[in-house]
């Protein structure tokens, strides 16, 4: 049978192709503008959850620090973390638990700042569904991304059994099946469904105690070799986020609307206000949270949790997955 050899041979050839690429390609100089060009890989189609980056780009904050940032859209099946790890792009975003898992497996990625203080992931159900709290999910099937770390956490935390279905792109299945339960972003799918006339309710995952950061990640060796670029990028991005939250989000929303056909102004307005209302981005000032900040103890606690649940196989030292050197000074 030829296919196993074929798969491996093509894999090897692909890797030979990658082998020669140099890290320094991650930051090149634009000859015309003499700005440093870097790439930011989005983890989904352009949406308000990326608003701050677009705001920074549209309002020239990146240019002001000498950067030209190419924002690359993502989508279903896109795998931004391995792309960063492989050195194909300099920056992307993700959840802190995913980054910990990646680092455990030897992927050279590093958290450089927080993007959101709290995770907007939630469980989505039809309004008529009998389940009303997370513990009631016992014995039910949830459509989510297999391998997500919160799944074993929920099982252990509430002592329940959950059946897993692979996530399929689009809401067709949810609309068609009043018993379907799936994962979602609380700022996104619920609004779209209500617009379509489907009544829904959500259960925020962070209510269970599972509340990772959403973070900006960078290619590890790149950070070591180009700290100035990283610093500039983080600063300008956070500035963009601050403006996106506190100022007029129109520049970002216009750009998102251009790049994403399925995004409506109403949807963007909802996501934007939800993010502010629930304080996902800035967090709770009284807890010492602020835009972009990372609390070492909170990270430790989260890592310990993952270790307890068995997702992390050994304790993971902080310096392997995060650096605090680029964070804005505390307010």
């Amino acid at each position, binding site marked *: *049978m030829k*296919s*196993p*050899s074929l*798969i*491996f041979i093509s*894999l*090897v050839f692909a*890797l*030979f192709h*990658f*082998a020669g*690429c140099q*890290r320094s390609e991650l930051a090149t100089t634009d000859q015309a503008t003499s700005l440093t060009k870097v790439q930011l890989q989005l983890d989904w189609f352009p949406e308000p959850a990326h608003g701050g980056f677009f705001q920074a780009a549209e309002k020239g904050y990146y240019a002001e620090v000498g950067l030209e940032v190419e924002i690359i859209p993502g989508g279903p099946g896109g*795998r931004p*973390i*391995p792309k960063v*790890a*492989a*050195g194909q792009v300099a920056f992307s975003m993700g959840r802190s638990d995913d980054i910990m*898992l*990646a680092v*455990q*497996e*030897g*992927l*050279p990625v590093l958290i450089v700042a927080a993007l959101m203080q709290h995770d907007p992931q939630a469980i989505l159900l039809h309004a008529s569904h009998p389940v009303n709290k997370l513990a009631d999910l016992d014995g039910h*099937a949830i459509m989510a*991304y*297999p*391998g*997500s770390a919160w799944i074993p956490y929920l099982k252990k935390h509430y002592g329940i059994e959950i*059946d*897993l*279905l*692979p996530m*399929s*792109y*689009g809401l*067709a*299945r949810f609309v*068609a*099946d009043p018993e379907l339960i799936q994962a979602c972003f609380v700022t996104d799918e619920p609004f779209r469904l209500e617009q379509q006339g489907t009544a829904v309710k959500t259960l925020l995952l962070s209510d269970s105690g599972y509340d990772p950061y959403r973070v900006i990640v960078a*290619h*590890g*060796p790149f950070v070591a070799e180009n700290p100035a670029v990283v610093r500039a990028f983080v600063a300008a991005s956070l500035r963009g986020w601050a403006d996106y939250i506190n100022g007029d989000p129109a520049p970002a929303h216009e750009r998102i609307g251009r790049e994403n056909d399925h995004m409506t102004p109403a949807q963007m307005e909802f996501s934007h206000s939800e993010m502010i209302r629930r304080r996902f981005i800035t967090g709770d000032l009284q807890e010492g949270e602020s835009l972009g900040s990372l609390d070492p103890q909170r990270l430790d606690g989260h890592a310990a949790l993952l270790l307890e649940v068995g*997702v992390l196989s050994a304790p993971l030292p902080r310096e392997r997955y995060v650096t605090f050197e680029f964070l804005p000074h505390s307010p």
Partner: protein
Amino acid sequence: MLSARLKPLWPPLLTGVAFIGLWYLAREIIAPERKFMLPSPHAVWIAFGEHHEALLSASFNTVIGALVGFFAATLIASLLAITLSLSGLIRAALYPYLMMLQMMPIIVISPILVLWVGAGLPSVATITFLISFFPLVVNTTQGLISTDRKLVELFTMYRADRWQELRYLRIPAALPYFFTGLRIAGVLAPIGAIVGDFSAGNSAGNGGGLGFLALIYSARFKMDALFATVLSGCALGFLFAGAIALISRLSLSHWHESYEKVDR
């Protein structure tokens, strides 16, 4: 004595060793931060050991899904092939739709399938069925209509009716073609089951095949386990292909020219 039986094993063994050597070499060439993309052979080996329970259980589920779809495909394809062989009119009427069905990308229709038949085994078996079905129908039909004209004349001479001709002539004569289709379908079936898992997998009660496992390892960035999963899939393919080769040999070797020993 023993060495004579082992002799045919040397060539593939040598290639295998050379291949593993290339694998290690590739790892040397890759930049250090990219090494995670290509786990070393021994890391994959260790991953096999670490995850053997999950892999075995997933392989079993994939085999079940593949077998159900495969058997259904064999049965229905054979019946359809016989129907198609009966007249050129029937073939002209049905072939275009068969072609259309074949062209439909499985990956795109699998979410729709999940909506219709439900996740888990029903969907996986259906996807396997769809993937295995066409080579079987096409090859078997070809075999049934390609019967040696002299033999057909012979049967006409004996005033055999249509069903006798089918039973005693066309079907036995079509077996080599059928087995060709079976060989192709047999390799595709496990692939179908694994791909089906991506959208239709189900972890209920130890469910979930190799595709589902691949999703998990991929999400957890466990490349070594992912490679082990891929290799398990290949092993399944070998298993299917081997089983079919055996059945083919038992049915055909006593008479078909493809089994004649050639002196070189």
